[in-house]
């Protein structure tokens, strides 16, 4: 018994010894219930996004003339829409559309927002003031209104919706990043690094950004959740993906007129959006708990 215990201790010590900080995260996720389930669910959603087109039972744009607005059945598990297309297949294809749009938009927010936030914090003074006042002004408009204005200018399409959502989230993101970077800027190791002649860029890339990686991961996850909602919202009002692209917001819009006669049209895309957004937010919340147990 004690031999086994010893072996376990030795092995876990060895593991600890070998663990680099960046690999600890996965271990921590797996130790916590909320984090674990939301992470696994997210993984499942991503897998569906990837293999969706292969497991879809039907062509998502094909019209079945014998089956307009049919309820769930053996052939069409989640029913068909107003022009006879299989809803399940459209949902499966749509996972990829929505995820791609949200991730691309968030990636844009991440890159530009991090750059603005960190540079502004590091340079400080007048530059910082100017940038942050501009961000404040942009933030005064709700993100979706800003996104609407941008799409209106660029013209409605999936790509433009993506760009608009990405740009519209930059102000909020960069203000959060700046706050996190400010405390790192004052730290002893940044001063020490400056004292051996490190350039400002080196310090920003190698000292500031890695030290706010935790915060960046949490914020980015949260912003992906927001981006999914915005993608669907733009699709819903017809400024996002254009028909016949199977996009959840667009599907919701197509179903909204038949709530009484054919509830399945709007219900299933609605559930899909809810589940995915819920999962992403849960994951973001769980990650924040892991990184900052006090808050």
């Amino acid at each position, binding site marked *: 018994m004690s031999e086994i215990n010893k072996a376990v201790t030795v092995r876990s010590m060895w593991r600890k010894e070998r663990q*680099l*900080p960046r690999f600890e995260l996965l271990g921590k996720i797996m130790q916590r219930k909320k984090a674990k389930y939301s992470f696994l669910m997210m993984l499942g959603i991503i897998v569906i996004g990837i293999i969706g087109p292969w497991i879809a039972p039907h062509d998502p744009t094909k019209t079945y003339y014998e089956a307009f607005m049919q309820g769930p059945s053996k052939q069409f598990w989640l029913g068909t829409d107003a022009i006879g297309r299989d809803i399940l297949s459209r949902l499966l294809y749509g996972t990829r559309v929505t995820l791609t749009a949200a991730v691309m938009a968030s990636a844009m927010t991440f890159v530009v927002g991090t750059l603005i936030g960190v540079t502004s914090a590091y340079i*400080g*003074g007048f530059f910082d003031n100017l940038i942050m006042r501009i961000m404040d002004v942009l933030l005064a408009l709700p993100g979706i209104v800003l996104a609407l204005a941008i799409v209106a200018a660029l013209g409605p399409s999936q790509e433009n919706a993506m760009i608009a959502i990405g740009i519209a989230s930059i102000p909020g993101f960069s203000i959060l990043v700046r706050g996190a970077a400010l405390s790192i800027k004052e*730290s*002893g*190791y940044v*001063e*020490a*690094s*400056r*004292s*051996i*002649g*490190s*350039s400002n860029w*080196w310090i920003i890339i*190698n*000292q500031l950004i*890695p*030290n706010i*990686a935790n915060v960046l991961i949490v914020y980015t996850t949260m912003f992906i959740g927001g981006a999914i909602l915005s993608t669907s919202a733009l699709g819903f009002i017809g400024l996002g993906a254009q028909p016949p692209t199977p996009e959840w917001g667009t599907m919701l819009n197509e179903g909204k007129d038949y709530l009484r006669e054919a509830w399945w049209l709007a219900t299933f895309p609605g559930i899909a959006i809810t589940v995915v957004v819920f999962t992403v937010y849960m994951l973001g919340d769980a990650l924040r708990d892991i990184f900052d147990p006090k808050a």
Partner: protein
Amino acid sequence: MTHVLEVSGLTTTFTKNEKAFKVVDDLSLYVRKGEALGIVGESGCGKSVASLSLMRLLGKNGKTEGSILLNGQKILSCSEHEMQNIRGKEMAMIFQEPMTSLNPVLTIGRQMSEGLEKHEGMKRAQSKEKVIELLTQVGIARANEIYHEYPHRLSGGMRQRVMIAMAIACNPKLLIADEPTTALDVTIQAQILQLIQNVRTERGTSLIMITHDLGVVAETCDRVMVMYAGQVIESADVRTLLRNPKHPYTIGLIQSTPHRSKGQKRLYSIAGSVPTPEEYPQGCRFAPRCDKAMPVCLEQNPQLLAVDQASDCRCWLYQEHTKGTAVNA
């Protein structure tokens, strides 16, 4: 002998709530090649600000005037880019807090190689070799493994060794050590001081040792300047200062330094504390705490003048024609 560093009239002003405070006031000093200069004073008297001013590392609200000549180069008229090439290469600094001076998410090797790659144009493989050599030189065993380690696995003493290795990596001509042993255990302190001494003698580096501990100065320095409330109040070679102190503040400092050989009962301490820059008095800044203070001391701040061949002192007691009766005695 040539002077590595020549500073005259260095004044650093901070602005707080629209008001300007001189935290370092008219500091002049020089350091010869290979020499060690001590700067001593209680905490809060502007030592760290002075050293950061020399490196031009102060934040945006600190303004530095005067002249700093490092090997003849005018530091205060250098651009930030030129400063980046000077820091680490011509002069480097060791900080007080080894626990916070290393980045927790970068390996020791990564942090140490930056200076070498920047100043010496080394590639990663070369700099790795050099870093391991440096780590070994500063007395770190298993340097090969430490190279890949993150700082949290190192003790305070080891981190300070790493900081020293980092500072001397590119062979700077001047090393500024700001209380390098204050945050360490007593047993480690002696080792770190010895290490700094070794580095100096091996490389002929000039040193400015900043400390609040006269014992450290006695062990490591050739000359010493005593600072009080942002000003130098006495300056002499170490022997003279310790044997024949002039300024009442210096005398108090010496009395309040624990002495190993004498079995002391209770340690003397100077009454009161260092005023903050906002409340520097109009006369001599030490007068409110001085038991030899005279009326003139409260009215006018004395000059730093040569008392004899060996020492300079800023005190009315030594500025002839002003002898009077003490007020606080």
